[in-house]
């Protein structure tokens, strides 16, 4: 099934790219095809969870790969639907968007499933290249081009460092397969191996936007169309976070404890500085970029705990973040499509100009802040529980204090929405597609926050394979 998913995504992307020029007038056709393919791979993902073995010595089949297929296909499905929010499609063509997203998802699946550093790198680059293009898709605006340029440059630096780290690790252990590397690393690795691991973590840190490797994120988010920024905030993050979990448990062997310590430090710095920087933002996309940095910090804390609770927390966090973040960015997309810029100034009084949109956005914002009964709350709660279980009291204290700052900057959005006077501005209309998508995602945020047990149970069985 894993093989079928890989083939389906690769050929599907190719078909969409080739067919794209013929459907510029009817953008929804390709969106429908793309959505169908993702729907199929989503179902195949459930089947893939029961497989085992390694494909061609490079791609592992198993519960975690299945989990990645399911989560990433969900992102693809939602993003394909989200492309329909802009009724007239994108100025630079719509079919290519679907093709690029599909390849990006394929890259994500490969990098989670990889059993091999080369495959990891290949998956990462495939996922990154598609996002480079997507970020710059709004090419007629200055910010779009600037965003893509910055993202490409810094992304390339990250990839280069990652590759260099891999090379050092190969020099030390003589292997680029996970199992071989794990066998060659001790709890006190040599300077060469420490350098290799550190450089690899820097490269991965670039992709996850951990501070201090985050500099590209605010610009990339601000310049990209909201849909692309939304995709960027969840698809590569989900894949890299799961891929890193696999590496921590399978590739780093006895040195994993040391790497987990570094991750804790990076995560704590991201949470603290990301929160501080987010407080001063007036552009909502920039604010959400810092919000992503903070969220990836919380996620990193879960990853670093290295326990079953921690990995379940990470998986749940990703699921919760997918629905919340995509919901938020879909709202932005819907509003930008109707000419309302994504900044606090333009959002003043939005909750009165269209109460329905206001309340739906409030659900997403509150979930990002971690308000109870919403998915974002449980995501943080599980990470905190993992920290308590691991006895990481200092990290726990830092994390809970930063929640307060989080509330502070998320509530600035709510303040603009509900407390500011709309002035003379007219009522806001958004398309029915947008409202229904936002409503579905808000409902998902609520259901995940209130009744998480089935999902939790399923995630637990999937990530339990990491602990063996």
């Amino acid at each position, binding site marked *: 099934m894993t093989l079928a998913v890989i083939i389906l995504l690769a050929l599907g992307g190719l078909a969409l790219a080739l067919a794209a020029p013929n459907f510029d007038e009817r953008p929804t056709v390709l969106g429908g095809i793309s959505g169908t393919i993702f729907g199929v791979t989503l179902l195949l993902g459930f089947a893939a969870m029961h497989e085992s073995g390694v494909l061609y010595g490079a791609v592992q089949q198993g519960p975690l790969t299945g989990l990645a297929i399911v989560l990433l296909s969900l992102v693809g499905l939602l993003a394909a639907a989200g492309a329909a929010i802009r009724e007239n499609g994108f100025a630079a063509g719509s079919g290519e968007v679907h093709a690029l997203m599909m390849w990006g998802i394929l890259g994500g699946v490969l990098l989670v499933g990889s059993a091999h550093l080369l495959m990891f790198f290949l998956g990462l680059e495939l996922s990154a290249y598609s996002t480079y293009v997507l970020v710059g898709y709004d090419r007629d605006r200055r910010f779009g081009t600037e965003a893509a340029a910055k993202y490409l440059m810094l992304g390339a630096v990250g990839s280069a460092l990652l590759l260099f780290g891999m090379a050092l690790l190969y020099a030390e252990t003589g292997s680029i397969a996970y199992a071989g590397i794990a066998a060659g690393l001790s709890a006190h690795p040599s300077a060469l191996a420490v350098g290799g691991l550190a450089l690899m973590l820097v490269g991965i840190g670039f992709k996850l936007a951990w501070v201090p490797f985050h500099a590209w994120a605010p610009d990339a988010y601000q310049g990209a169309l909201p849909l692309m920024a939304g995709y960027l905030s969840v698809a590569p993050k989900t894949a890299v976070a799961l891929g890193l979990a696999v590496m921590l448990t399978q590739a780093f062997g006895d040195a994993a404890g040391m790497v987990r310590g570094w991750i804790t430090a990076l995560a704590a710095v991201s949470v603290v500085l990301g929160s501080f920087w987010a407080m001063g933002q007036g552009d909502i996309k920039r604010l959400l970029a810092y919000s992503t940095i903070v969220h990836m910090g919380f996620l990193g804390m879960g990853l670093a705990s290295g326990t079953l609770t921690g990995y379940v927390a990470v998986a749940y966090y990703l699921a919760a973040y997918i629905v919340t973040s995509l919901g938020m960015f879909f709202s932005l997309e819907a509003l930008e499509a109707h000419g309302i810029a994504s900044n606090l100034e333009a959002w003043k009084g939005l909750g009165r100009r269209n109460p329905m949109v206001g309340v739906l956005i409030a659900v997403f914002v509150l979930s990002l802040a971690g308000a109870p009964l919403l998915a974002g709350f449980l995501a943080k709660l599980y990470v905190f*529980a993992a920290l308590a279980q691991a006895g990481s009291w200092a990290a726990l204290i830092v994390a809970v204090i930063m*929640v307060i700052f989080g509330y502070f900057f998320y509530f600035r959005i709510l303040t603009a929405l509900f*407390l500011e006077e709309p002035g003379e501005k007219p009522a806001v209309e958004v398309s029915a597609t947008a409202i229904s998508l936002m409503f579905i995602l808000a409902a998902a945020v609520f259901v995940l926050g209130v009744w998480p*047990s089935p999902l939790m149970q399923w995630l637990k069985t999937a990530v339990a394979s990491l602990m063996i």
Partner: protein
Amino acid sequence: MTLLLIFLPIVAAALVGLLPDPKAEAGKRIALGVALFTLLASVGVYFAYPVGSGGFVSQFRLDWLRLIGSSFHVGLDGLSLPFVALTPLLTAVSVLASWRKTDKGFFALMLLLQGALVGLFAALDLIVFFLFFEAVLVPMYFMIAIWGYEERRYAAVKFLIYSLVGSVFMLAAMLATAYLAQPALGELSFDYLKLLSASGYLAALPAAAWLFWGFAIAFLIKLPAVPVHTWLPHAHTQAPTAGSIFLAGLLLKMGGYGLIRFNLALFPGELKHFSGLLAIVAFVSIVYGAYVTLAQRDLKRLIANSSVNHMGYVLLGIASMTAVGLHGAVYQMVAHGVITGLMFLMVGLLAERTHTREIAAMKGVYPAAPKLGGVLWLALLGGLGLPGLAGFLGEFQSLWGGFLGVMTRPYVWWAVFGIVILAGAMLWTIQRVLLGKAETEVADLEPYEVYAAAPLVFLAVLLGLVPALLTPWIDAGIQPILTLVQEVLK
């Protein structure tokens, strides 16, 4: 039944919010109906409670977050029932007090608050308690920030941040408690009753003091105790009348309730260790709160500050760790909910009529509007702790308990000054606002406003004269805790 009391208002809130109801005509009627229905139901549960045998009734338990051992466990006992009954009562009063409002969102938020507060008082799982603790914040924030007076934004943000600071430390302490208690319980559990059985083990932990303060900070901010009380004058003053009634009548009680429920029951050793410090905080709150009350020029702010004084008695009673003191603390909380609720109701109605809250601008309200003035008169006398009204019994028992407690006794002598100063403040207010010759016309109470005030007046007098309506329940609630505390302290 517990579930009904929690979730009926929440479901009704969603209904009110979604109805196409531009003038909130249906919304306020639904809110009033739900509040009255839940009031009847909770009064029924209250009187059906077996005060002789005690324990938790109407328990409901559902596996919720299995991985971390948290279940949705709620139940009611003698400690929570008075507050569970007070919540719908004050909701009904608040709805009537806001009868002129035309925003359905306002009434939806009130119902949300009601459900969340009942959930908080009924929670028997730490995570569930935290959930409702936080769930109270968001509606209250919006209630202040959207419908408050002129400095509403600042007040709302201050309220939010102070509350959050407390709650996040409480969350950390909860997680730490559950994980540290794991070896004693043999499983990871956030269940209050299970953790209670491990309180002897918790007391021996080296981190017990940290856990104690994690909880205590949240509750001291909520109570509020000097010096973390500074959010209160702003929030209470700037909130709309209904918001002030909720804040004073119920949100402050979260602090005292939490201190008894968690700090006393789970960490009695630490409470004993720090009771001298808490007694100082209580005494400062009592005296300083009264002194600051004396200096206010804004009538609403005056009442807000008197709450600092009143809640100081609660803390004193708890810090004494005696049965009398705890009785006093709970009695004082209920009495304060009724009397201060009444004060805020009257002052809100008065401010609506005079368009000012300046004490200097009001004169002779009693001759101008005898009904409004009479009720306010009674409320202010209740606030100074006049014997025969509910507040006296609470204050008296708290002080007596404080006197019986070894660590608290030295501070009781000084705390008595708080009574004198507050009495002065209240009497002076009566003189300035109610007495004298009426200078302006003040419309007297409308019939629905009389209905809003009537139950609170009735209760203020009834609880002042017939303590048997409350003490057996308090007894059933705190005796088991005290027995446990004595076992642990041995």
